[in-house]
């Protein structure tokens, strides 16, 4: 499965090993991990709750992976995204891409994250000392996705 949504944590070493294990053509592996910060918009973050839209999320992530494979000469890609309650420093998302050469792996990895940030139906709710609040989307995320 190129995409997974789970509450459990993930281990990048085993994920990378599994993705490239059976493919001796691979000469480059690029990866990205997004993690929970302890501060956002000047507020201390005690907890981050990630909600998603079951049914659509898997489909949206698979479409983004398919788009990456169509745009870049990569061999494989993996997206793991956690949902539920997370704490500062917890891992949120993992993207791994394999290709023959580094430029394609770097580009596809960045493309996957930029598209995920604007097209995959996840929402973050922050718990701060002042109460809970939904995270607002950033215009910079739209601009990052539009570059592709």
């Amino acid at each position, binding site marked *: 499965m190129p995409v997974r949504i789970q509450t459990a944590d993930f281990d990048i070493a085993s994920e990378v090993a599994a993705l490239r294990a059976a493919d001796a053509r691979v000469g480059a592996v690029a990866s990205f991990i*997004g993690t929970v910060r302890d501060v956002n918009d000047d507020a201390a973050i005690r907890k981050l709750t*990630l*909600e*998603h*839209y079951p*049914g*659509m999320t898997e*489909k*949206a992530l698979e*479409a983004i992976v398919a788009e990456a494979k169509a745009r870049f000469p990569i061999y494989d890609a993996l997206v793991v*995204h956690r949902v539920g309650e997370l704490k500062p420093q917890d891992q*949120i*998302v993992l993207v791994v891409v394999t290709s023959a050469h580094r430029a394609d792996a770097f580009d596809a990895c960045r493309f996957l*994250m930029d598209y*995920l*940030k*604007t*097209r*995959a*139906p*996840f*929402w*973050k*709710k922050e718990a701060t000392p002042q109460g809970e609040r*939904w*995270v*607002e*989307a950033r215009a910079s995320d739209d601009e990052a996705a539009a570059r592709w």
Partner: protein
Amino acid sequence: MSASSISRACEAFASAGETLDVAADTSVGALLDRLRGRGGAFAVELAPGRAYRVAVNHVLSGPETIVRAGDEVAVFPPVTGG
């Protein structure tokens, strides 16, 4: 058509999701006009210049997409995953 319960969207629209009857050949744009016409949170959140997304049967869709009987339409604020 029906909508599912995404709490981010439910809180924004003060709605728990609902089943609506739509005429044949109703577009997403026409459906949004109908929702705006209710006033309240729908009029505010779907006002021109407000950012929102629409998915029909789990696929991001534009105003020209036609909604058919049995379709699931979700209207939600911009996503913030990653």
